[in-house]
């Protein structure tokens, strides 16, 4: 296995992009990543693109080829593959790119993610996202995606005494960070009162506990570490990349408040990097709902089970805390174009490790990403360092 580095990153602004199409979103992110790496498109050997539901959101399948075509990369007929694991599609694309380079099959690979969610109405979006869980035995009996995470929250609050205010503090912290991220969908601070006054979506979760519907794309360029200096003075090394699976339905889990796939992927990543949670300086976790961030912090081993609410209340997960979580604003404030999220997390870590995260910079040499598909049926973790 070869050592692999990230040598270029590119992000579109996240938000409701009425004037931008699905394909143009990806092309913008890809072009920025190439620009960042000072590279020509002709140098790219392969593309992996994470996308959850082009078929539902823009009625488009065959996304690998579409992206290669409009990125101007069909001239050399390089392979281009769309990968899908619901909200973890981006993380999966990154891991595919990593294994492709690490194994020596290809040298320069672009891993991207894209989702265009606002071309359909709210009810259709809700229904498409419910496909991340078990359509037959969850969706069809009336479970919405927020409803499933709400049932995790009910179980968690009952067992660990988490308060509604502590849950709100996750959203408040992420909006504080997002307000300092020029690419974020919601660059606006909020208060605990704002969260508690927002509309109930699925008890106990309110609107401001939920990540929004977002258009956006992200791309990163990977190459062998030994080649990285040809493209950048600040390569970021991939120390680990891991993936784990679990039951598709929440009701089949061993423990509703623990994502066993997060535990497994986290342990594998720490083992591969020969590190422990104490070595991690910052982490981008999958906060599709506020409760998901708390579960992630615990399941990755940053604190004991049931303690993440207190950790958040004490400011330890904020900028300047002992383990800054979601410095990008997370899915909550930066936005959640589902297929792009796992790549955006990597972009944030790279920006931070290069010292380019103006206004929200943390002091870290090692960062971690955690990307979840569904309610925890797929988890991808990556550890990056300089």
């Amino acid at each position, binding site marked *: 296995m070869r050592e692999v580095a990230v040598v270029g990153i590119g992000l579109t602004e996240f938000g409701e992009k009425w004037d931008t199409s699905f394909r143009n979103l990806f092309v913008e992110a890809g072009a920025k990543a190439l620009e960042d790496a000072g590279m020509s498109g002709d140098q790219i050997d392969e593309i992996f693109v994470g996308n959850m539901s082009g078929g539902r959101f823009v009625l488009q399948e065959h996304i690998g080829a579409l992206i290669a075509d409009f990125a101007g990369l069909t001239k050399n007929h390089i392979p281009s593959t769309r990968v899908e694991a619901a909200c973890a599609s981006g993380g999966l694309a990154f891991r595919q790119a990593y294994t492709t380079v690490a194994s020596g099959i290809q040298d320069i690979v672009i891993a991207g993610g894209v989702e265009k969610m606002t071309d359909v109405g709210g009810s259709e979006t809700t229904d498409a996202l419910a496909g991340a869980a078990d359509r*037959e035995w969850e969706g*069809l*009996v*009336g479970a*919405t995606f927020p*409803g499933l995470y709400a049932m995790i929250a009910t179980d968690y609050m009952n067992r660990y005494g988490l308060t509604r205010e502590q849950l709100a503090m996750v959203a408040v912290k992420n909006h504080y960070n997002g307000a300092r991220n020029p690419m974020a969908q919601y660059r606006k601070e909020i208060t605990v009162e704002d969260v508690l006054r927002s509309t*109930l979506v699925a008890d*106990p979760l309110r609107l401001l506990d939920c990540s929004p519907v977002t258009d956006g794309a992200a791309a990163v360029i990977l190459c062998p570490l030994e080649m990285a200096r040809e493209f950048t003075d600040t390569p970021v090394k991939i120390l680990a990349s891991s993936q784990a699976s679990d039951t598709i339905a929440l009701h089949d889990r061993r423990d509703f408040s623990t994502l066993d796939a997060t535990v497994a992927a986290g342990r594998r990543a720490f083992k591969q990097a020969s590190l422990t949670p104490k070595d991690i300086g910052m982490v981008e976790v999958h906060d599709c709902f506020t409760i998901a961030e708390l579960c992630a912090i615990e399941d990755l081993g940053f604190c004991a089970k049931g303690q993440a609410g207190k950790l958040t209340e004490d400011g330890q997960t904020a900028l300047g805390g002992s383990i800054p979580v979601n410095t990008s604003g997370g899915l909550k404030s930066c936005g959640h174009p589902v297929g792009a999220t796992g790549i955006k997390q990597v972009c944030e870590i790279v920006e931070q490790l290069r010292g380019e995260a103006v206004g929200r910079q943390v002091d870290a040499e090692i960062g971690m990403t955690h990307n979840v598909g569904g309610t925890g049926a797929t988890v991808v973790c990556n550890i990056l360092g300089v």
Partner: protein
Amino acid sequence: MSVPRYWRKQLNRYNLKGSKCETCGRHFFPPRGLCPECRRDGKIVDCEFSGNGTVRTFSIIRTASSDYDIQTPYPLAIIELDEGTCMTAQVICEPEEIHIGMKVKRVFRRIIAEGNGGVIVYGTKFVPA
């Protein structure tokens, strides 16, 4: 969704018919054709559940897809059946009434009606026991 897709699982949806593994004794609802513990060594047979269970966790769904508009808000729960497996289902009760540990029993109910003149889907919901 297509009519055959509803029809195919109607015995499971209407009568809470699931499956069990005779090798290890585990029950499955929704039914599985392969035991995750015993895999090919398992012997899967059909079984019908008693329909009695306990609420393990719940939510009140206040925003749902348009198929569920007329029912919203509705309590949704993960119910542990007495046979030891868990399933997701709606509970017919007041939102403030549902709680963890609540004993429930199954009933046959309409799940959704697809617009005017569309398919009416029936299945299992639960009521307080």
